[in-house]
């Protein structure tokens, strides 16, 4: 690791017989393998860098989203949740806020309430919906009001205990689901001297382990991984990625000269192709019937527009995890470009431009004729205004009043 660059190199020929260095650049890089190491980055340090900017943004009325992604065992949960001795980002943020908390888990595209109380079928999946006033929400998800940080921590622990974990040969407790812990708070503000409120959300997301190879799991379209899907069930993903990429590059020379939407694919299927009517240049917009994964959908408003997003990628220092580490780094690097920014498309409106040019020409010629009629003698400069008004009356074609006739004659320029 070198400052903000992460160099990933292999020197032995154990599995891959390549010797090369790969470099990735990030906003921050932390080395936390050995606490005794002088470069060791503590939970506190991570909070100072990232947590504080999260809180600052939220207090300004932005929605914030923090993702943790990486191989199982590389430190995601440590970073996001931590342990009682070494608390992570989420509890630290909770210490500063007091608000409404929801905690849900997404497993195999099904949503589960991690803070459910009482009788609820274990497998029941909650429905995600969108309401014009309320926005996107999970139906029947329990909300918990907290007024101090201990309450928040208790909820966090309760939810964690309810997460689906599994023991496989590789790991003792691998998390096979995404977990989203949302802190929502309402801030009373004065808008134009009237009391109003803004609602801000902080979403803290612990993404499932990155080495999953489940063929039935439709990888989030948060990024276009190059993983080949085995099952023909996922033919749709391939075709939709084709269509999406093709849509991106189908534009001809456009009057709308905005930069392209980052490399490769973007998050969300059709939401990024929202257009108000075709645009002036020539990009063909289509509809890709691939439902966003539940994760992407729920965090839609966090992934673009009025939000700030932070992604933390955790990697193992072990040489055996080279491939997974590389994969994680690629994913994270790519994620920087995924921000979903639906465009406003506008008309070329060539007619308007032409008409305006014509008006400009008319005004210019008027200016010219005025100057030609100008008396060259400086002694008459005092009377210039008088002359000016005469000229105006003679040359002005814009509006004439004919009060005798009781109607207005107007030549629109």
């Amino acid at each position, binding site marked *: 690791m070198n400052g903000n660059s992460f160099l990933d190199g292999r020197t032995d020929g154990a599995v891959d017989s390549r010797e090369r260095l790969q470099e990735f650049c990030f906003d921050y890089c932390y080395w936390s393998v050995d606490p005794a190491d002088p470069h060791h980055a503590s939970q506190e340090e991570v909070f100072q860098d990232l947590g504080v900017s999260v809180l600052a943004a939220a207090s300004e009325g932005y929605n914030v989203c923090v993702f943790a992604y990486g191989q199982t065992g590389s430190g995601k949960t440590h970073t996001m949740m931590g342990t009682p001795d070494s608390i992570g980002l989420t509890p630290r943020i909770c210490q500063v806020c007091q608000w409404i908390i929801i905690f849900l888990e997404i497993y195999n595209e099904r949503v589960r309430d991690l803070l459910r109380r009482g009788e609820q079928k274990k497998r029941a999946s909650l429905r995600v919906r969108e309401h014009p006033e309320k926005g996107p929400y999970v139906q029947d998800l329990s909300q918990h009001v907290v007024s101090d940080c201990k309450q928040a921590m208790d909820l966090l622990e309760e939810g964690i205990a309810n997460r689906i974990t599994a023991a496989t040969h590789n790991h003792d407790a691998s998390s096979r689901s995404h977990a989203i812990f949302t802190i929502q708070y309402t801030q009373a503000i004065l808008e134009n001297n009237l009391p109003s409120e803004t609602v801000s959300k902080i979403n803290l997301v612990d993404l499932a382990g990155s080495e999953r*190879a489940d063929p039935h799991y439709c990888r989030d379209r948060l990024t276009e991984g190059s993983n080949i899907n085995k099952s023909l069930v996922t033919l*749709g993903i391939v075709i*939709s990625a084709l269509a999406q990429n093709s849509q991106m590059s189908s534009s001809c020379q456009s009057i709308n000269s905005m930069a392209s939407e980052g490399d490769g694919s973007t998050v969300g299927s059709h939401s990024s192709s929202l257009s108000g009517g075709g645009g002036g240049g020539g990009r063909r917009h289509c509809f890709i*019937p691939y439902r966003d994964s539940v994760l992407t959908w729920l965090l839609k408003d966090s992934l673009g527009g009025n939000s700030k997003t932070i992604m933390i990628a955790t990697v193992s220092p072990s040489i055996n995890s080279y491939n997974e580490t590389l994969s994680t780094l690629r994913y994270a690097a790519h994620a920087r470009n995924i921000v979903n920014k639906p465009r406003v498309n*506008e008309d070329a409106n060539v007619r308007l431009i032409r008409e305006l040019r014509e008006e400009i020409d008319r005004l210019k010629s008027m200016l010219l004729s005025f100057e030609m009629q100008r008396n060259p003698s400086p002694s008459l400069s005092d009377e210039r205004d008088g002359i000016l008004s005469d000229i*105006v009356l003679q040359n002005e074609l814009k509006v004439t009043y004919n009060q005798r006739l009781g109607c207005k004659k107007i030549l629109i320029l």
Partner: protein
Amino acid sequence: MKQSWRAICEKFTNAQNLTEVESLHDPENDPFRSKYKARELLREIYCSLKKNSPAGLRVAKLGAVEYYLGVNHVDTEELSAGQEHLMNCVKLLEKCRVSSDNVSLFIHVRNQLGILWAGRDETEEAQGFLETAESIYQRYMKEVRFELAYTHSMYYLAQVYKNLGQTERAATYCHSTLQRQLQLNQYNPMEWALNAATLSQYYITKGRYMEGRHCLAAATVISGLAGEVPSEAAAQESETECERREQLRQKRAEIARCWIKYCLNLLQDAKKLLEDNIGELDTDRQEELKNARRLEEEEEEKGRKSALLFGSEDTFDSIASLEEKVHCLFPLDFTEARAVFLVGQNYITQAKDYFQMDGYVTDHIEILQDHSALFRALAFFEEDLERRCKMHKRRVDMLEPICNELNTQYYLMIRRQLMFELAETYNEMMDLKLTLANRQADTQSLDNHTIKKFNHLCSASAKYFQMFLDSLCSPEGKFPEHLEEEVLRPALVARFRVARLHSRLISSSPPVQLDNLNRALENYKYVVQYCEAHPEAGAAVETELELSTEMVGLLPLKINRLKARMAANN
């Protein structure tokens, strides 16, 4: 020997059963339980074979077991071990000749290695394995048994080509995969239909409407094979029926949305071909294209169709008859355009029926936006200006209420799009009203009513552009000093348009005129000043900047004249 062979076969059957059937029921907190058991059995088989089989046959059989062990490890996320087993299989098979017995294994193991390497982003390695698999198939294909393996190879190759950026080839492989699925009757109708509909969108973005239409027609026909939608009553009774009802309705609605895009793009592309340099229909070009079309029609159809047909005997006809209901060639006049419009509108209704506002806000609005775009495209072909204006009015009536209904925080992006579209639509209507009025009058007079109407439309347009600009403000109401890249151009264009609109407002009162001109100047100035302060912004709005600069220079002249006149009249 025989008995031991039978025992081995039984064990193998068990292992397969565990892998394919039992594993589906494994609990969430122990998801690989059955596969671990299967692995044990496979290992036992391996040992037995090694000890007991005659040497010659042994190699191929061991190879098979290595294959299954490889797949087992990959499925349980132990990729390195999986790769080892798969490579062992390849090495063992190299010692055998390819025969009809083992060719399927030859193909399968390479498919698996292809997937594995692709998963490591080593797309070229992956391609190597998969193309070998493909060529083995080509050489030995005779039996239906391998068809599915080949279908998979094609599918994996499609993915590899996509990753390599060879989209045209990838699309062809996807298309072939779909074709084969139909021919082999190995498909789930609803899934197949959705995939075909998605592929149609790829074709549409490439402007290949004939292929796109074929995919869509096939999608519609095959989706019908998925059966009846369970009634609401049935859905209430059972959770599975409820889910099934949701699934079917949703997917059919999504196919409808793909059709909408087909109609919309066809109309828009036709418009681009036919428009002159001010965006009106060029009758000469229209004549030209109509003549050209007559000549090309037949040739094209024959040429392309043969390679691409979907379907089986029962479905060919239904697909063809659906295709006949809508053109794939560009509409060149109002009648043809209207026909396409009506097909699109029909699908709008279908789609809206499922994607209702309460529950599917974003989808519902996208559909409305498409409907608005359909009207806009059709308006281009409409010669009668009065009717044209009515079409734009339909758009406003559709979008205006929605814009005001949405939560400003959650739907910020969508609202911005709607505001911009409403602003432009009102502007369009304003221009039409003026043109109509000017045509009617021989003397150039406008009556009060027309002026009022014109001003109303003008103000409405300005209002929505201003609303768009206001939406960029911070929660405290402050306009940003620096405009983000994705709103830069729309924001500057909005300013420019507001300026222009204010200078077009009609008033008989000089103070009001003065006020309008001042506001126009203010907005033109903003554009110029912003671009001065942010030099890179100029590139995004070249024309608007140029014109704004001119106006900043010339408007003061007009303003001064007006002031002078006002002074003179007092």
